């Protein structure tokens, strides 16, 4: 492949082209097939229009936004922790947000409508924020290889606690709440309707923009905190901005679509191999790459067992879990060399 020689900007354009293609395929395929011509205003019938406007368009948009957020959030966390395995799911951010949202559903007395939606955003944000602050406090006490292990163990512990908390909540939940929990919790874009998508269209670009502005700081941080300070970096302010943006974005994503794992691990890792670790390119490229992966995965989830639908979180975990194991094996080998 000549990929190594292409200009990095060209690579982002290639990704954008692939995303456009995936969106076209995603728009036309499903239980009710739609001709790609509809994108050019050629409406076959009222049903086609309904499916496109009420179901597919908001779902595609939500997939783009959440995919972009999860991947860019992963890239930023990895830069912040200087650790290629730091991922919002592995570190427990997503599950922390999930536990907070589940607690709201079960204990919050069932708010409906837009108010309930925003309360869920807030719960997700706070859950993710608490976990990231905690993980960061643990992670900064260690250096090098020790830090990698400690972080992953901390994430494991948080995931176990969140799992147990979620189980407890499911245990005390009423039947109606239980149905709501299981619908939301598996990680799926199936509930993407305009109110949720519109809210995501406000919150997630905000978080993405916040992350994009951290690119130079994240690059500098790779020098080590002391050297980066001498190169003009205010590491504390960078940390605050990254953690806030990731918590906001991941919290909102989890509130909307449940836990969709491994996108934040997979996408930045592949892209770093392809275009290098510089965040000025890696962050925007991860946004496009994450959107691409989630749109493709969601299209598969909708169509592979049609008319039934596989939760897309299952698919990304099936893809990402083995990849993560392979990464661990590879790291072990390089460590021994």
């Amino acid at each position, binding site marked *: 492949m000549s990929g190594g020689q292409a200009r990095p900007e060209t690579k982002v354009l290639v990704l954008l082209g692939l995303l456009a293609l995936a969106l076209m395929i995603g728009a036309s395929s499903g239980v009710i097939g739609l001709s790609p011509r509809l994108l050019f205003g050629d409406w076959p019938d009222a049903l086609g229009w309904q499916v496109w406007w009420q179901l597919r368009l908001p779902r595609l948009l939500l997939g783009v936004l959440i995919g972009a957020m999860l991947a860019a959030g992963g890239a930023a966390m990895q830069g912040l922790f*200087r650790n290629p395995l730091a991922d919002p799911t592995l570190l427990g951010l997503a599950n922390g947000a999930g536990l907070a949202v589940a607690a709201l559903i079960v204990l919050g007395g069932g708010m409906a409508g837009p108010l309930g939606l925003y309360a869920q955003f807030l719960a997700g944000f706070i859950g993710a924020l608490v976990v990231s602050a905690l993980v960061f406090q643990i992670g900064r006490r260690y250096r090098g290889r020790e830090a990698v292990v400690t972080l992953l163990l901390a994430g494991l512990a948080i995931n176990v606690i969140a799992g147990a908390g979620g189980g407890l909540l499911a245990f005390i939940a009423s039947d109606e709440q239980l149905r709501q929990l299981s619908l939301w919790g598996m990680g799926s874009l199936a509930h993407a309707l305009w109110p949720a998508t519109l809210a995501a269209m406000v919150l997630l670009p905000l978080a993405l923009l916040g992350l994009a502005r951290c690119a130079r700081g994240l690059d500098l941080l*790779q020098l080590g905190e*002391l050297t980066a300070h*001498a*190169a003009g970096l205010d590491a504390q302010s960078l940390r605050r901005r990254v953690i806030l943006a990731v918590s906001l974005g991941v919290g909102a994503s989890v509130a909307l679509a449940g836990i969709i794992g491994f996108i934040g691990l997979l996408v930045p890792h592949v892209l770093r191999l392809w275009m290098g670790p510089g965040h000025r390119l890696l962050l925007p490229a991860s946004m496009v790459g994450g959107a691409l992966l989630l749109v493709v995965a969601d299209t598969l989830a909708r169509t592979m067992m049609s008319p039934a639908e596989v939760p897309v979180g299952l698919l990304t975990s099936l893809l990402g879990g083995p990849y993560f194991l392979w990464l661990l094996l590879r790291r072990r080998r390089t460590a021994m060399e």
Partner: protein
Amino acid sequence: MLTLEEACLDTTPRLAAISDRLAPGELLGVIGPNGAGKSTLISLLSGYRAPSRGRVLFDGVALADHDPAALARRRALVAQAEAPAFDWRVSEFLGLGGGTSDGIARAIHALELEAFEARGIGGLSGGERQRVMIARALCQLDALEGDGTLTRLLLLDEPNSALDIGHQQRLMRLLQRLVRERGLGVVCVLHDLNLAATYCDRLWLLRDGARVASGTPREVFANGGIAEVFDVELEISLCDERPRLRLRQ
């Protein structure tokens, strides 16, 4: 350029008060046993740690009161070797702290990086990586150009710990050249006392977080203090007006 007024750190690790000045065009060596506070001193001089009491002034203004971006072009640091988490291409890594492409080319030449300029930093040996770190700091200051009109400070913490003896000598000569020709002020933590005695204009000897001696290498090595600080049996002779140390068998 750098003035310490009774600057001290009460935190752990602690550092007793020091008052001194570093002039442009001076190569200051910092020596002392493990845990003496050398790296702590570097973080104080760099402004990463603020003094608990006293002041550290750069061109008459406290380090914390400088604009960080402007100060970054005048003060750079090479920390103790730490491998980057990601595999940067060397040429890309050199530009991380800022610097022109000319400055990067000069630094590549000065640290003899031509052979692995296009390679990933993860595949380099410890010594090669150390040279990349030093070159990056030079890029940040554009240290291989200009004269002493713009005061510039370079702080190095054991920059030669992984270098072979040839590169150690060439590094010390490069530092001397930066000081003499470009008017930089350089503070360099060294473990090799002979290198320190041979190349530094002035030495600070640290022990248990306090500066116990300071002066020219001859002055610092003059009495038996150095052997006591390091708890080692030494013979000190003079060679070209510079002290030379030998371990006693």
